[in-house]
């Protein structure tokens, strides 16, 4: 059985897009093949900066024959209909067969379609898969009207087994696929003609292209490790997986070359060194274990130079030195010019806009300040510490260093704070109140960092929601989703109980309407909102956070029904309490008691809903005070007694003893079942009926403020 090999050879595709592009190509082609009911084996994609590669194994040369059946008029239909049918199918009377379908006998025509040549099928499917790709950032080039990530240079498509190789001449972007490709841009020349995947792999390796990103990564690490083992026993590579992944997408043939950092720069703050080395130059940092400092770097070239890389490393060292001397210059400028009382820097923040309609960074800092003071007691943080950390949280935005190296925000704030004698724990908060920003970031544990971090994020969400700049679809230009997720992780990872979002968000909303909080009226748009709208905004923000919470927990492996049953409960706003409920429900549901609870809850909600749809009083109106005098049957009296007992038990449980509450309510199953079996609810006497429904609604209500069990579909 033959394999299919595809290669799209392009100009350099950005590193971060290579893998997703390969994966999408794979799934689109697979979808096409599945639609055609074509069987195949393993599918694998590979990528380099210039290649997107797909290998699909074990396809047939020919697809299997298929029988297509077309139904005509029923037997006994007018002759005109029958002859029309035959004409339209271009067949004779003798070809007709009759079969019963349903209760009627029809004429049928069957046609046997012989298997077709897979090569031909593939040409169409590949072209259509390519045309269907959705590329977030793509472009036109030349006079063509096809879009791709970067211009396509050539296409390769072959179908091969041990005996033979066929070209699959699919067409795309004005090109036709052949059986040739090219080696490394600088280290190989001419076309390579390819007859199989092993041939492709080995010819490209000989032409200095390793198509497998993982193997390129191993080459980089292997080569660095062996050089260190051999020549530099006092050096140690600073491992950075994210950077490695990026570098792997920048080279077809990785050649790591070690360079030195000039002695005079080695004493720069380590973050400054790392940022310049990583973000700007994409070098790997190397630490000297004797000195405990970063003294060297590895540049990963895409090229084996004639002089063994001497010129390359000389050039790279020069670029790095010039960048570091810039950094040194700005650092000294800042250290010389910053006031001894850093709080004075707040005034300089009036020069920097926060966002259109939300004032300057000074306005922002003042709002964070009042919010932080409000939150501080929850974390036993002194109000004065929270306030100082809040007011210093953004001052570094106007320093030379951060203007030049924006990714050093926070880091420089801490550094300068320490230089001016600010307490280390507050400096720490200046740096890590931004965390977590990415999935891989750690969550700070310093209560001052948590306080300022929460204040900053809540203020951010509130501001943009009031401005009605709410993310829709995939875009999130103001990073509101990130702010919500940061809030969630800060609360969850630190197990913060009793942090009511509604309370703090309401406070923040009011802060935005305080007139004196405006340093630059020019950049501020009057917020005109009535009380009703304010209320709605507050609920919108809470729901926005809760939706992120649900997505986050499901990503963490929690069952989505259990998560939603605990999150989407009216007036819910305590994230850690929600988490406790999820854990409780998760462990409770698989037990017998869990089955009992779900059983009784379903029975009750079913009758409440069905009687509701029957134009009876709405369940919400029913759940009110019960009138025991209206009970007549012993079953309902016994249920009522048991209910009263349970209610008492439940209300005496600790607020967050969710397991205990679930347990208590589930014990009502037997009484509920006998109630349903013996008591007629839908009686003519409206008062009696309502009272019976009312009892059920009250039972259900015992858990309603913690759970919405309706969201659990499966018993």
């Amino acid at each position, binding site marked *: 059985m033959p394999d299919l090999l595809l290669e799209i050879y392009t100009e*350099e595709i950005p590193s971060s897009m290579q893998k997703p592009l390969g994966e999408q190509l794979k799934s689109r082609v697979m979808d096409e093949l599945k639609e055609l009911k074509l069987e195949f084996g393993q599918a694998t994609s590979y990528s380099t900066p210039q290649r997107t590669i797909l290998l699909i194994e074990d396809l047939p040369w020919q697809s299997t024959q298929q029988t297509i059946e077309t139904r005509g008029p029923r037997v006994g239909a007018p002759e005109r209909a029958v002859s029309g049918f035959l004409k339209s199918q271009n067949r004779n009377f003798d070809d007709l067969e009759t079969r019963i379908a349903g209760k009627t006998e029809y004429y049928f025509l069957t046609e046997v379609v012989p298997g077709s040549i897979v090569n031909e099928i593939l040409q169409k499917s590949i072209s259509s898969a390519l045309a269907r790709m959705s590329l977030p950032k793509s472009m036109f080039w*030349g006079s063509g009207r096809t879009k791709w990530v970067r211009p396509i240079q050539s296409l390769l498509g072959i179908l091969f087994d041990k005996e033979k190789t066929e070209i699959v001449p699919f067409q795309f972007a004005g090109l036709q696929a052949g059986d040739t490709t090219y080696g490394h841009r600088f280290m190989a020349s001419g076309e390579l003609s390819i007859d199989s995947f092993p041939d492709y792999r080995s010819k490209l390796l000989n032409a200095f292209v390793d198509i497998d990103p993982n193997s390129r990564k191993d080459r980089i690490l292997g080569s660095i490790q062996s050089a260190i083992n051999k020549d530099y026993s006092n050096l140690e590579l600073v491992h950075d997986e994210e950077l490695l992944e990026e570098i792997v997408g920048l080279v077809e043939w990785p050649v790591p070359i070690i360079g030195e950092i000039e002695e005079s720069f080695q004493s720069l703050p380590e973050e400054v060194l790392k940022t310049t080395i990583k973000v700007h130059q994409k070098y790997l940092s190397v630490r000297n274990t004797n000195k405990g400092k970063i003294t060297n770097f590895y540049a990963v070239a895409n090229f084996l130079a004639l002089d063994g890389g001497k010129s390359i490393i000389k*050039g790279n060292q020069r670029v790095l030195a010039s960048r570091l001397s810039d950094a040194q210059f700005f650092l000294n400028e800042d250290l010389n010019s910053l006031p001894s009382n850093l709080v004075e820097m707040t005034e300089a923040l009036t020069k920097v*806009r926060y966002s259109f309609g939300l004032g300057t960074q000074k306005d922002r800092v003042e709002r964070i300040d009042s919010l932080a003071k409000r939150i501080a007691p929850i974390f036993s943080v002194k109000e004065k510490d929270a306030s100082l950390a809040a007011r210093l949280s953004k001052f570094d935005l106007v320093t030379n260093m951060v203007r030049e190296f924006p990714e050093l925000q926070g880091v420089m704030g801490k550094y300068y704070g320490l230089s001016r004698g600010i307490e280390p724990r507050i400096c720490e908060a200046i740096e890590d109140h931004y965390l977590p920003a990415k999935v891989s970031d750690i969550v700070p544990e310093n209560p001052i960092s948590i306080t300022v971090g929460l204040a900053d994020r809540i203020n951010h969400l509130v501001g943009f929601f009031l401005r009605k700049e709410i993310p829709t679809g995939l875009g999130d230009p103001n990073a509101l989703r990130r702010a919500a997720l940061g809030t969630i992780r800060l609360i969850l990872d630190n197990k913060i109980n009793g942090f009511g979002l509604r309370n703090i968000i309401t406070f923040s909303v009011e802060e935005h309407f305080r007139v004196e909080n405006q340093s630059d009226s020019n950049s501020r748009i009057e917020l005109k909102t009535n009380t009703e709208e304010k209320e709605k905004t507050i609920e919108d923000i809470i729901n926005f956070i809760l939706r992120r919470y649900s997505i986050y927990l499901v990503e963490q492996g929690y069952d989505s029904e259990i998560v939603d049953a605990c999150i989407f409960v009216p007036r819910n706003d305590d994230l850690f309490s929600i988490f406790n409920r999820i854990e409780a429900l998760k462990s409770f549901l698989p037990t017998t008691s869990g089955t009992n609870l779900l059983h009784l809850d379903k029975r009750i909600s079913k009758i409440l809903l069905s009687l509701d749809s029957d134009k009876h009083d709405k369940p919400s109106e029913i759940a009110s005070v019960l009138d025991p005098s209206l009970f007549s049957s012993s079953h309902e009296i016994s249920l009522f007694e048991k209910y009263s007992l349970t209610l008492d038990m439940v209300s005496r449980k600790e607020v967050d003893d969710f397991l205990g509450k679930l347990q208590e309510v589930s014990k009502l199953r037997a009484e509920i079942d006998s109630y349903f079996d013996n008591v007629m609810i839908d009686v003519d006497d409206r008062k009696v009926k309502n009272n019976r429904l009312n009892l059920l609604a009250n039972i259900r209500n015992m858990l309603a403020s913690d759970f919405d069990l309706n969201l659990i579909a499966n018993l």
Partner: protein
Amino acid sequence: MKTKNVVKPECFQEVILNLQNYWADYGCLILQPYDMEVGAGTFHPATTLRSLGPNPWSAAYVQPCRRPTDGRYGDNPNRLQHYYQYQVILKPSPSDFQEVYLKSLEAIGIDKRYHDIRFVEDDWESPTLGASGLGWEVWCDGMEISQFTYFQQVCGIECNPVSGELTYGLERLAMYVLGVDHVMDMPFNRQGAAFSKTYGDVFKRLEAEYSRWNFDACDVEMTHRHFENAETACKEILSQPEIDAKLGRKNLMVHPAYDQCIKASHLFNLLDARGVISPIERAAMIGRVRALAKQCGEAFLASELEECPTNPDME
């Protein structure tokens, strides 16, 4: 195209001369700099306007650029408020554009066998021109030496066909090729001759003078007024009747209008360097220049399509 035996440049002007010869041999029109203050070679009408519409175009030229905020009084080793760009525009972008570019590096003495040349992702955008494109910055041994862009949009108008644009930062590139660490030390012409000068001999005092002017002296009120005037002029020129009364036929004044757009853009840069524009104003002024660019682009396209309604090559 034949690759000629090139002489490795020894001074700044030879780097430029080699590029001129290379692109002349390739078949570009060798144009001269535009005679107005601009922030980048892209502003030259030979790039901005010619990249619109269906007609093929290929040109190369040196363009002096002014970036008032980058002035450092001539003290910084590589920051200048006035510097040169070498600009190449090929429309439609040829399929071997990267190869052609790489050969131009050889023409200025970068021997590919010794250097690590990379195309590193960089999406280009000029908010004032309403222009954007995808491409790369080109790195040589970790240093950015060129900008390589496929125009997708110019003056807010989608490009069809797509132009390929190359921009070489000449001082930086030459410093690299010549192995110089401070721009002011770079030989401008061959050293050792009777009359030899460095880059500093030519530009050091200008950098100091303009830095003072840009940062401190330039009259804000007047500059602001000039900005308003340029904006008004641009709109007025474009609102004139299409028929030239003297000629008795259509004669749209696209280029004179575009000059005013360029002027407005530079005046905005000056005000920006003076630090007198608030963030809100900044966004608004960029928007105003972009609106001018859009009108100029549309007017150019309208007259271009009229002159050349269909072009069989472009079908």
